[in-house]
């Protein structure tokens, strides 16, 4: 029997209590673990300890001025220098520079000077996006789920699995010096919910955080965030499921921009960042023939120039294109572009702010059926992802491998030495794993009744010992 952990569950826990929590005035801690235990919290702890079956989806990030492309799959970070058309080797100094567990977030800074990678090894690595030297490695207390770099490139912010957002100052990061250690401070938190993405408003005034419940919080990002970011500007409330992705669109008429978000409720929504008002909701599931909600969850968004939005959908092997009109505050479906003859769904999207290419990666870590490398990643690039007046048909077309910038050499690097042909052979088997990885990433963990009982008993045991 499957049961999703929600408020409902919590309710049953509470009604069992019967009377108000017993609390001795002498300060004894009676029954606490049991009464107030949050399902999500329990689950987070559970996840910390027990993660045999976790598979991480592949991620892609494109340099804002097309200098390079990075793909992360499992603990592997692969970078290709587009300008010089060479593979970057991140391991030339020592193995120590690399990640030791699944990478969950990668990001270039807005001006393209820095790159950040972070994930399950609780390390946040800050790289010089030109020399690809690791400038700093920040230790997180918990596994990291999202990262972003402030607009002024003075701070790296990252979110951990307990819903806390941390900031690290980049001040004094010496580009010549070897990797140094930096300390992070907590600046804000979502109560007991995993943060799925972090972003900044175009003017840098606000940090935006979205979580696995339904919340998007817009917080004033102070000049010195190391004292905390306490002033909440708005909440963008409207998603009825987890929020999986954020993107900010702006143009010269609206420099402060609008927020786009995608979520498990198969919608892409447009928000006023200042007030949190919902401006537009675009239902995407039915457009790709997936009316069934869990399969039509939005998994990624990419909107570099504000007129076109590329949407990745959990069970759709392709891209859904939306038109976006900032002044009319409108979003609408343009068309679905599928990968011909393919079953693999994209796990991550990327684009530079300048070029007309939309980059996609599909893949997962820890794929047992896949012998050549346990990490599968397939990179595909569309051309024609350019500014439009919003009405014309957009000419998105899939590039052949040899047409991709950097060609086969780039693909060999970013696909981890596995050729596209080889990937095709296993793609049918991998397709399910990819879908499962996306689902696991975002859905709240489902527990069987026995498992729940077991966890309860274990908690009681712990209590009795004391």
């Amino acid at each position, binding site marked *: 029997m499957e049961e999703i952990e929600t408020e409902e569950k919590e309710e049953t826990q509470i009604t069992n209590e*019967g009377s108000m929590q017993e609390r001795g005035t002498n*300060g004894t801690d009676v029954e606490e673990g049991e009464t107030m235990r949050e399902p999500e919290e329990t689950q987070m702890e559970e996840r910390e300890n027990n993660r045999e079956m976790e598979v991480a989806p592949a991620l892609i990030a494109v340099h804002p001025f097309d200098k390079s492309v990075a793909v992360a799959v499992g603990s592997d970070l692969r970078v290709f220098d587009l300008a010089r058309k060479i593979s970057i080797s991140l391991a030339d100094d020592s193995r120590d520079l690399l990640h030791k567990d699944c990478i969950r977030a990668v990001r270039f800074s807005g001006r393209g000077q820095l790159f950040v990678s972070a994930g399950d090894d609780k390390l946040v690595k800050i790289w010089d996006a030109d020399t690809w030297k690791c400038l700093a490695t920040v230790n997180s207390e918990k596994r990291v789920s999202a990262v972003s770099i402030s607009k002024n490139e003075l701070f790296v912010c990252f979110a951990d699995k307990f819903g806390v957002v941390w900031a690290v100052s980049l001040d004094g990061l010496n580009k010549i010096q070897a990797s140094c250690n930096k300390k992070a401070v907590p600046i804000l938190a979502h109560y007991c919910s995993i943060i799925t993405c972090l972003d900044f408003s175009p003017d840098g005034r606000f940090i935006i955080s979205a979580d696995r419940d339904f919340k998007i919080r817009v917080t004033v990002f102070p000049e010195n965030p190391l004292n905390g970011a306490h002033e909440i500007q708005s909440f963008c409330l409207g998603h009825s499921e987890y929020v999986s992705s954020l993107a900010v669109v702006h143009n010269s008429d609206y420099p402060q921009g609008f927020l786009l978000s995608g979520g498990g409720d198969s919608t892409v929504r447009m928000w006023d960042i200042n007030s949190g008002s919902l401006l537009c909701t675009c239902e995407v599931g039915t457009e790709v023939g997936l009316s069934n909600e869990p399969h039509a969850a939005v998994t990624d968004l990419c909107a570099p120039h504000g007129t076109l939005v590329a949407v990745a959908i959990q069970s759709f092997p392709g891209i859904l294109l939306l038109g976006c009109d900032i002044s009319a505050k409108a979003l609408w479906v343009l068309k679905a572009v599928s990968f011909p003859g393919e079953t693999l769904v994209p796990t991550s999207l990327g684009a530079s702010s300048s070029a007309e290419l939309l980059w996609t990666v599909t893949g997962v870590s820890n794929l047992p059926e896949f012998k050549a490398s346990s990490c599968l990643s397939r990179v595909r690039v569309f051309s024609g992802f350019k500014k439009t007046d919003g009405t014309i048909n957009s000419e998105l077309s899939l590039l052949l491998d040899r047409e991709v910038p950097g060609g086969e050499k780039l693909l060999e690097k970013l696909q981890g030495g596995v050729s596209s042909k080889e990937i095709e052979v296993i793609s049918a088997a991998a397709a399910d794993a990819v879908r499962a990885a996306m689902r696991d990433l975002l859905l709240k963990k489902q527990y069987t009744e026995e498992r729940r009982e077991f966890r309860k008993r274990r908690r009681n045991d712990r209590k009795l010992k004391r």
Partner: protein
Amino acid sequence: MPFRGSSSLRRHPLRCFESVVAPPLFRSSGTNRSIIRYAHSNPLNHSGDVKKIEFADIGCGFGGLLICLSTLFPQKLMIGMELRDKVTEYVKERILALRAAHPGQYQNVSVVRTNSMKYIPNYFDKGQLCKMFFLFPDPHFKEKNHRRRVISPHLLDEYAYALQVGGVIYTITDVEELGDWMKTCLENHPLFEPVTEEELKADPVVELLHSASEEGQKVARNGGQTYRAVYRIASPM
């Protein structure tokens, strides 16, 4: 209908004070969102202008404080938020009984079953509240559990969001350690400033912190000591 969360429910002002019980949360499956309608009507509403809830009692327990506040501030709308089902149900029955026994009174008070630590922003707009109450909250002694405390540095950000400038947060406990904790959290929070002793003396609500709620009465009966911290949202420089 003081709940925002789905697109259809979202920006409705908190106006439907017809009910004694606010509608339950939507469940996470987006398909079975339900809007529940209530029979009771609120005379305060009939003037036509939309009134907003201004007081919130967080973890209201059996509702003693709300009942006192209801007659002390008959023109203000107030809501209790309580996690436990049965307790919420009890408060609801209690309010309905009072309304029946005192026609025209107790129309300004309601209760909702919710986890306040998660859903405050779904119920209140920015700067909507002028008073928030945290009376005898659960202490969560262990260090590891401090983040479950209903007053914490991070949750204060959300309370500051819901409160208007000058809005007051009232906290009281009989657990010294928790009292210190709440005071320290408030003291260190840049958006809050302490309410002076003089102002506290002039505030009729302060007396109720000790005497109105069920937990407060229990502590008073046992002659227990209480630790109080009352802060307000400082006006921006």
